[in-house]
């Protein structure tokens, strides 16, 4: 087949990993693949830090009394958990790790359009992260990740300004990444790689980048205004100074609702790649799946006030935002239906990445449907600010985003590291994550409907059984997340050597060696085929590659 480029086991001697071993060659690299690895290490550190805080939350909630820590400590712990997971893990994780690594490879480019800005993005991220860690170690912050005013500007006596500045800086890291992706995707596609031939992962990252550059400046402005009011008592949000607290919520959610799509869209892109490869089929309704990403990005900007149905907005504003919120439901549903339809008459393998894709479809379906319940205003009044909301957004942001990320990490691990991961352990961890996740968060839907508010340090005793179940699930989930870190690390040295295309997958990233050379392709590829041309690529009989 003409589309198979490089024969197996003929990796060139130099690749991006061994092209320079000094610390400087890593810290000053402009290679998108090395920067992706820098991000991989840093988001992993933040993930486990955020996870540590999650475990503290779950342990405190094991009993109705506040007994493990003080109320103030608990408030800081859930704030740290939220801020770390949202700003330092979920937002960058898929675009900055997998996107950084794959966008140039998938479109046949040597690098991103602005390699040095890409490095700057990582440094901004690290600066923001270090500042946040400093804030955490010198007392922390207790406003919740949402910074609601006037608590954040006049109520809290913690270091809100420093946390705000770190979010501000992290925002620019994400703006630069978005800018880089948009220019790269517009200008640097290989000859023949037209828009309707692009992998869906590229479409998803393109849509994500649009949100990043259009939405992120708003959160940056908002945290600056919070800092200004806090430091100089300029009345913006605090009614005692003549401000309006609802103005803050409008500005905050104008970014923070689309931010949910910054998190989920790239993972949806990953799932499209996985389903196509492991069903050996072109994605059913390619064009609709591609455009649904853009539709989600656009509609996502029109629904922010659905976070404010009980906040004091007018009756009719609430109705309009409820109506508009359902509009996001359609393109999301379209994606799920198309992935399902792709399985029809496929040749389906149950390799680990596909198990994660199945997990994504299941958890995202539940997360999405409960989102529709929340958009239904009559129901939202009762369940907003309860554990129902907590469960809902964890299904989308953790169930969805992390399933996609872990699926993608396993799928492209041979390309990233040049090694295969141990399939048995990987399947076990995928199972643990799925079971542990549902055990942790499903009880929280019930907990929310019976009335337990979120951000509670102590609670009435009748809520205990559901909380114990949730904590038990969290321990299973923790094992499920720790396992991949261990065995992927192990595989770097002991994993079987991977060939250029261990899955026989379509996509330009598989037509170069594993790991790829510094400039990705020895010759610029010329694309003459549609995306997911699995009819032209022979499938492997085994579901998973083995060591050779």
């Amino acid at each position, binding site marked *: 087949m003409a589309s198979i480029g490089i024969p197996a086991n003929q990796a060139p001697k130099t690749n991006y990993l061994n092209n320079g071993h000094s610390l400087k060659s890593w810290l000053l690299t402009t290679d998108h693949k090395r920067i992706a690895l820098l991000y991989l290490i840093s988001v992993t550190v933040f993930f486990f830090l955020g996870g540590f805080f999650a475990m503290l939350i779950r342990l405190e909630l094991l009993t109705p009394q506040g007994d493990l820590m003080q109320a103030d400590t608990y408030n800081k712990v859930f704030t740290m958990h939220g801020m770390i997971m949202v700003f330092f893990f979920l937002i960058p994780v898929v675009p900055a790790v997998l996107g950084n690594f794959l966008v140039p490879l998938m479109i046949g480019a040597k690098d991103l359009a602005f390699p040095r800005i890409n490095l700057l993005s990582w440094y901004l991220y690290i600066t923001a992260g270090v500042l946040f860690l400093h804030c955490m170690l010198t007392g922390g912050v207790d406003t919740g990740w949402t910074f609601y005013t006037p608590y954040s500007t006049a109520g809290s006596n913690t270091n809100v300004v420093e946390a705000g500045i770190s979010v501000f800086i992290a925002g620019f890291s994400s703006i630069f990444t978005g800018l880089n992706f948009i220019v790269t995707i517009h200008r640097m596609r290989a000859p023949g790689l037209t828009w309707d031939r692009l992998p869906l992962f590229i479409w998803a990252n393109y849509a994500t980048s649009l949100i990043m550059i259009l939405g992120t400046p708003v959160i940056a402005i908002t945290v600056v205004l919070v800092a200004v009011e806090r430091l100089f008592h300029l009345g913006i949000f605090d009614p005692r100074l003549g401000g309006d607290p609802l103005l803050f919520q409008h500005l905050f959610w104008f970014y923070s609702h689309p931010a949910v799509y910054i998190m989920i869209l790239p993972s949806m892109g990953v799932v499209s790649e996985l389903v196509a490869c492991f069903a050996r089929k072109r994605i059913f309704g390619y064009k609709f799946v591609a455009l649904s990403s853009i539709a989600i990005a656009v509609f996502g900007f029109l629904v922010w006030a659905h976070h404010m149905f009980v906040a004091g907005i007018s009756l009719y504003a609430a109705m309009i935002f409820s109506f508009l919120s359902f509009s996001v439901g*359609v393109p999301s549903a379209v994606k799920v239906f198309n992935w399902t339809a792709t399985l029809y008459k496929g040749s389906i393998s149950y390799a680990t990445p596909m198990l994660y894709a199945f997990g994504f479809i299941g958890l995202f379906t539940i997360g999405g449907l409960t989102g529709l319940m929340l958009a239904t205003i*009559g129901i939202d009044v009762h369940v907003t600010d309860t554990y129902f909301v907590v469960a809902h957004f964890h299904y989308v942001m953790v169930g969805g985003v992390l399933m996609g990320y872990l699926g993608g990490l396993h799928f492209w691990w041979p390309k990233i590291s040049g090694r295969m991961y141990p399939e048995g352990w990987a399947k076990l961890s995928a199972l643990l994550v799925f079971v542990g996740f549902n055990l942790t968060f499903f009880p929280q839907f019930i907990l929310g409907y019976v009335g337990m508010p979120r951000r509670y340090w102590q609670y009435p005793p*009748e809520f205990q059984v559901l909380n114990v179940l949730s904590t038990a699930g969290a321990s299973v989930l923790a094992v499920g997340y720790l396992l991949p870190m261990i065995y992927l690390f192990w595989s770097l040295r002991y994993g079987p050597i991977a060939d250029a295309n261990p899955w026989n997958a379509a996509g330009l990233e598989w037509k170069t060696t594993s790991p790829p050379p510094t400039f990705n392709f020895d010759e610029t590829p010329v694309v003459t085929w549609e995306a997911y041309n699995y009819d032209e690529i022979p*499938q492997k009989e085994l579901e998973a590659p083995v060591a050779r």
Partner: protein
Amino acid sequence: MSKFLPLWPDQASTMASQVDALYIYLLLVSGVMTALIFVAVTVLAIKYRRVPGREAQQIEGSTLLEITWSIIPLFVMMTFFVWGAVIYFEERTPPADSTEVYVVAKQWMWKIEHMEGQREINELHVPTGQNIKLIMTSQDVIHSFFVPAFRIKQDVLPGRYTTAWFNATKPGRYHLFCAEYCGTQHSGMGGDIIVMEPQDYARWMAGGTSAPLQETGKQLFSQFGCATCHRFDVQGRGPNLTGVYNKPVLLEDGRTVIADENYVRESILNPTAKIVNGFKPVMPTFQGMVSEEQLNALVAYVKSLSQPPTGTAGLQNQPATSPAQPQNMQVQ
């Protein structure tokens, strides 16, 4: 409600069963959808599992299918929207005959004032079968008044009033929670709603000794010197407040606003924000001079001036002309 493993909250208000009915509908639809996806994925994944010698069959897609599975969910979602909006409309529209209760939230307690003058902290006694309208404000940060058994929740903001209402149906003691994170003791900022049979409630209410809220307001009205300008006999420097509440007011800049609770409140704290047509901006601000409780009493008093005369409120004259638009005080 099982105290060991509660799966459903108590239904203790007229709203509860309506919200639950919609919730059950949503659960059914979502359950069917989830089952469809799960079954479809499972069946297809098993039926088309990889076996030697069988290749996948490429299928491009189907515009008809795409349209179908866009339109049908959209239609189903519109039923969610409409039903949800109907309930929300009712939740947000207190009936005209509601008994009013003032709520002041602060870190970290709920202060309740009944019109009869009864005050409570972290407890609210109400009778069954009566519409209760809560007029709420906060002294510091945002809080949220949440009673799961009534299915109501409303954020309580500093600097303005928000309202909620309910009609309790079942005597008992129900949780009151603060649902908007408000600092250290957020999870301790709870209380009890005590729903009583009307006769028990009357007995409880009779136990109090304090004066009705509007009487307190009337005293404050003269204590703060409001009566000097807002006169009831002749036109003073400020508008005559008789019959003003809930009526449209023409402003200096040509706008017309409804004189609701928030308008009265703002006119006390920030009098120059909305000047009534024909008056000078001469009223001093009372920001920082009146407490939230005193404000509530003043608002209750101003509102009582618009009720049919019962002999309790200080009504000296019947509003023959529209008091909101004085004819004889056009200031040039």
